[in-house]
């Protein structure tokens, strides 16, 4: 079992798990009952899904230039993603979007 094969395997696994996270986040965004629960789904794809897919790509990059860019993208997303969801949730709270309780109709 050579190192390159190991890398390939790790990359594939990471891509696969990342895709599953991304997909489940998409389904969650569609199926969850209200805005605040949907933020959870969006946060899931943005951090776990995107991070794993980019990690999978990072494991099969040919040169360091591409690797640097991938790392930068991950860092940037890690900074901005939570910031925007945080601000969104706070703004919605201020604007009086109410939290969904079990039994209420979907919104």
């Amino acid at each position, binding site marked *: 079992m050579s190192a390159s094969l190991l890398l390939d395997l790790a*990359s*594939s696994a990471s*891509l*696969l798990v*990342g*895709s*599953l996270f*991304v*997909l489940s*986040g*998409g*389904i969650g*965004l*569609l199926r969850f009952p209200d*805005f605040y629960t*949907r*933020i959870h789904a*969006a946060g899931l*794809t*943005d951090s776990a*899904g*995107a991070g794993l*897919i*980019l990690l*999978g*790509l990072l494991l*099969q*990059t*040919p040169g360091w*230039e*591409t690797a640097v*860019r*991938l790392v*930068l*993208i991950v860092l*940037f*997303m890690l900074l*901005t*993603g939570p*910031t*925007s*969801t945080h*601000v*969104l949730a706070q*703004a*919605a709270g201020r*604007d*009086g*979007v109410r939290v969904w309780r079990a039994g209420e109709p979907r*919104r």
Partner: protein
Amino acid sequence: MLVAATAAVLVTMVLTLVRAVLGPRLYNRILAINMFGTKTVLFVALAGFLADRPDFLDIGLLYALVNFVATIAVLRLTHEDDPLLEGEREAR
């Protein structure tokens, strides 16, 4: 595996679009569009690898940046007091 990941991202794009179309109302749409933006970053990165020219990842970086700017802009500029929006808030 790249192909599978690309397919997953595309399918998620469609799901997100459905949420953006259905809404309801502003915040759900902002959330959906913000998430759509990160999916395009992933798509561009994957497409670069699929085409065997991954040296264009600058585009992905730019997408992440403008996506953030757009989200902030929506939040900032829709906060202006709009009597019509107020009315809608009452009606909710």
